[in-house]
């Protein structure tokens, strides 16, 4: 991913002007991230977002249309664009169904999380580096679907996968769990095997996608 060598190019689409301003300032102030386009509506976004954007941060509720339709349109135009959805509602079910046939799986952050500067910036950076990120609060509420491959993970493996789904790298996972990065790698190998992920694919992304598809958030 070329974004590793230059600032990641970010587009932000949010219908509330105040929040759009806040997000733009937060992201723009971060070294390694560059806001190249902002918009409040779907049509405006399609007109102003240039080619070669790395991450499109999209609110679901827009002035005209919605972030789902916009995200699909952006990826149809340029399959390399990665989508980070923002919403004040739990839209994980939607992210899961959209990700099933998108060029790259979508990421999702609740609006409450998006106003935490550290979390927003870390998430955009992770997405720019090709990771898929799911809102931490919802990851913590996730339960494996009965009889799914994911339900066969041990509690420790499930915890590792949860942190990966939050967008953490191996080092951060290790730090959070108080184990060595090598132990994290070993856990991941076990997880990939249990989930029977296709060889050669980006296992990390595939594992997060499996996490999305094989968990639910009852009542969330």
């Amino acid at each position, binding site marked *: 991913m070329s974004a590793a060598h230059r600032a990641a190019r970010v587009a932000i689409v949010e219908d509330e002007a105040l929040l759009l301003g806040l997000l733009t300032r937060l992201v723009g102030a971060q070294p390694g991230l560059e806001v190249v386009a902002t918009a409040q509506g779907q049509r405006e976004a399609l007109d102003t977002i240039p080619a070669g954007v790395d991450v499109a941060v999209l609110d*679901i509720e827009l002035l005209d249309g919605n972030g789902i339709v916009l995200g699909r349109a952006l990826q149809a135009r340029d399959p390399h664009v990665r989508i980070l959805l923002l919403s004040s509602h739990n839209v994980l*079910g939607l992210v*899961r169904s959209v990700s099933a046939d998108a060029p790259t799986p979508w990421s999702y952050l609740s609006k409450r999380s998006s106003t935490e500067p550290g979390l927003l910036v870390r998430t955009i950076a992770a997405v720019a580096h090709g990771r898929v990120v799911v809102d931490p609060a919802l990851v913590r509420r996730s339960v494996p679907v009965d009889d799914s491959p994911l339900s066969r993970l041990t509690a420790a493996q499930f915890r590792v996968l949860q942190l990966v789904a939050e967008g953490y790298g191996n080092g951060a996972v290790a730090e959070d769990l108080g184990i060595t990065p090598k132990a994290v790698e070993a856990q991941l190998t076990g997880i990939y095997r249990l989930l029977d992920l296709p060889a050669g694919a980006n296992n990390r992304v595939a594992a997060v996608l499996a996490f999305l598809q094989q968990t*639910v958030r009852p009542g969330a």
Partner: protein
Amino acid sequence: MPVRGSDRRALTVAGVGGFVLLALPAAVALSPWRLDQTTPGTTSQALGIAPDDLGDAVRLAVLLFVGTLVPGALAVLVLLRTGAIDLPRGRRFGVIAVLSVAIASVRTGALSLGLPAHLPGNLVPMEFLLAAGEALIALGLAAYYVDVRRQIRAEEQQRLAEAEHAARVSAELEHEELRVRREVSQRLHGGLQQRLVVAAAQLDEIERALEAHGEPGIARSVHELIDTLDTLREREVRALAHGLYPWAADLDLDAALALLADQLPPSVHLDVRYGSGVRPLLADGADPTLSPADRVALFSTVEEGVTNALRHGDARRIAVAIEAAAGHHETHHEGELVVRVTVDDDGSGLTGPGAELAGLAPQRARARRRGGDLTLGASPLGGARLDLRLPVRPVRHEVEELR
């Protein structure tokens, strides 16, 4: 109410038909001749017809027939062409009276022409009055017939206009109710919930301060209060907002159902199938598409069906099928579709009659108001089947907005 083409035809048929009926008794001219074959010297003598002259009798009959029908038909034409049929009743009666006198004159003239001898003096005015009276009745009835037709049509149009007005008012009310529900729901969600978040965060600080000041008892009470606030926000306010307006209905129906699937217990498998008739309404940027009211109705019904299956039926598998087909032309409006939704489950099925329909009552009332229906029965999967038929009118994007 103006005169229409169909009124013209009706007047022509009724008027000319009337004069045909009046002209037919001209054959009476032949009967005296027939009668006189057996009993000579009666009627025909009075009329001056030679009892043995068939040619005279036929000539008289033809003249009387033509002498009635031709001026009668002309009078109908005059009524139509001059617009006299549209005059107020009194003036129209005047015109008809004048026309009747004209018809009577022609007919009496024809009678005189047809008779070989002069009529007895008193027969002419009698014949004239009779002909005028007949013509007056024929034209009057034809005009009255047109009046009745117009009145029936006016009443029918008024009835239709009233029905349309009622339907429009009902649709406007439904739209307005939905708009208000959505607005209140958004305020609960965006306003009240956010304030509760802030309040909980402030209480958090107080709790920390109390702990720092060596007040663990009060700190624990504050912590419980925070938990109560969180529960209130997470459950009550959210459920209230959702009950008013399911936020997901702002998205496409398939997106809303995907969201629903994510919130089910892990033991439940939800399968949603869309028929080829409904897909065009759900595609990105579909135009026309389902109206917000229809999306809410369909989503709420599926949601209620799924909730019922879980709550009462202990289901593990739920199958939702959605299809749309054109409505029947006689009973439905142009462009209207009937969406059929079935929610099947493999649970324990219906336990008490009608009990499960309680939560569906508003959806059923809405479906019936629109000419559809909602029923609950046995499912091929073993549990219950919810079956909704809802006539919908897809809308263009520009009129879709609730905001």
